[in-house]
């Protein structure tokens, strides 16, 4: 199989951790508005972006995710006052660190998507899927078994 054909066939798996109050609701709104985005996106609901431990992200990569998204409320709008501020530090550091150990930074994306930004949710997910398609499958962190 040629490389080109491989990229054609490659359907990335992208895990999105969405905070219940903003981004998950934003995803719901994308649904209500029938704003389509690729089926490669699979959402895990968490109460807050600050609930997401880097371990979950690494685990997703180990289990074969080609990209991971963490989505939370815009800074200042956190339902839990300051959760996204903590998340912002944590994932700023993690993303740089993953890049340092040789993982493409684009595989981990963090976005602030509010409950009213359904179309932005769809757009962000579309963009990420496109980017990961170009990047190709995650072979670096994946469990080889």
């Amino acid at each position: 199989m040629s490389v080109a054909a491989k990229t054609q066939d490659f359907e990335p798996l992208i895990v999105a951790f969405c905070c219940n109050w903003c981004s998950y609701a934003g995803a719901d709104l994308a649904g209500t508005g029938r704003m389509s985005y690729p089926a490669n996106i699979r959402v895990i609901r968490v109460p807050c972006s600050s609930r997401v431990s880097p371990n979950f992200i690494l685990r997703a990569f180990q289990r074969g995710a080609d990209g991971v998204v963490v989505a939370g409320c815009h800074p200042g709008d956190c339902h839990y006052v300051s959760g996204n501020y903590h998340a912002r530090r944590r994932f700023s550091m993690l993303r740089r660190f993953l890049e340092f150990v040789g993982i493409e930074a684009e595989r981990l994306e963090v976005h602030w998507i509010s409950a009213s930004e359904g179309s932005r949710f769809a757009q962000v997910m579309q963009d990420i899927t496109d980017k990961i398609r170009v990047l190709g499958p995650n072979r670096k962190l994946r469990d080889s078994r």
Partner: protein
Amino acid sequence: MKEIMQKMRAEAARVLSSGEVDLVLGWEKGDLWWQSYPVFIENEKKAELLTWDLFCVPNLAKYLLEEIWHKKRVALFFKGCDALGFNQLMQDKRVDREKAFIFAVPCSGLVDPQKVERAGLHQGLLRVERLGDELTFVYKDREKKTAAPWFYYDKCLTCRYPNPVVFDFMLGEPVPVNPRERFTAVKELEGQNVDARFQYWQRQFSRCIRCFACRNVCPACSCRECIFDLTSPRWLGKATELSENQFYHITRAFHMAGRCVDCGECARVCPVQIPLTSLNRKLIKDIDELYGPYDAGVDPQKVPPLVTFNPGDPAAFLESKGV
């Protein structure tokens, strides 16, 4: 160093006999030139066992955790790096300042036996002495003199706190602080492309035998039960598998973010020479860049950068460096 060793022994005997402490933690000389082990001394008569030489590298602070919590008060000796580790343990509320009587030992660097070996100076070596900036390798029938920094641990060459930041009693005079740039290796890696970096770390991580020495020696790794040992949930798989090694090293380093005192012990004890300091220092460098300079272990009252925030923090995950 001899005078300090004399003082060490005298002070240890004094605090034991006065009943100020019921245990002294120090180093004692082993059988071979490079062996200086931790020793527990409960009797002032044994104070003569204490040694202070170019190989007293183990940090004694971590013994405060499990082995001796039932002691009334413990005296122990700290080099600069050890003191930072102790402060980190303080910040993690793992040690009680009141229970420790700290002797500060300013340290201008310790000798890396591996460097001695690599230079071929180890055959028949009896001991190593230092005078000023010069080392004397003493053999049965000859001596060899050389510049000391050549044989210091890498971590000593970049040491920024050779004089302990916490102590009750100072042994000797503070030494000058003169660190080399510590982010050189990190910057070099940062300059490479992402695949080259991956290959570099793949080479490193695939050597890991998961002996957990790096974790066990670390003064910031003080959990009662480590996440990597838990079976429910099982965070870290048991298989010999690169991805598990990656998980271990990324998570270990990340747990250290904002807490690593950069004492370099992890890299020193690694049996397969994984450059763990580069991982730790990458995080230190990023924290310094993004949230302002922060040196873990200097002031245990300061809030570590990854459990606080500033509403105006940069969103560094929006940076895109391209594929």
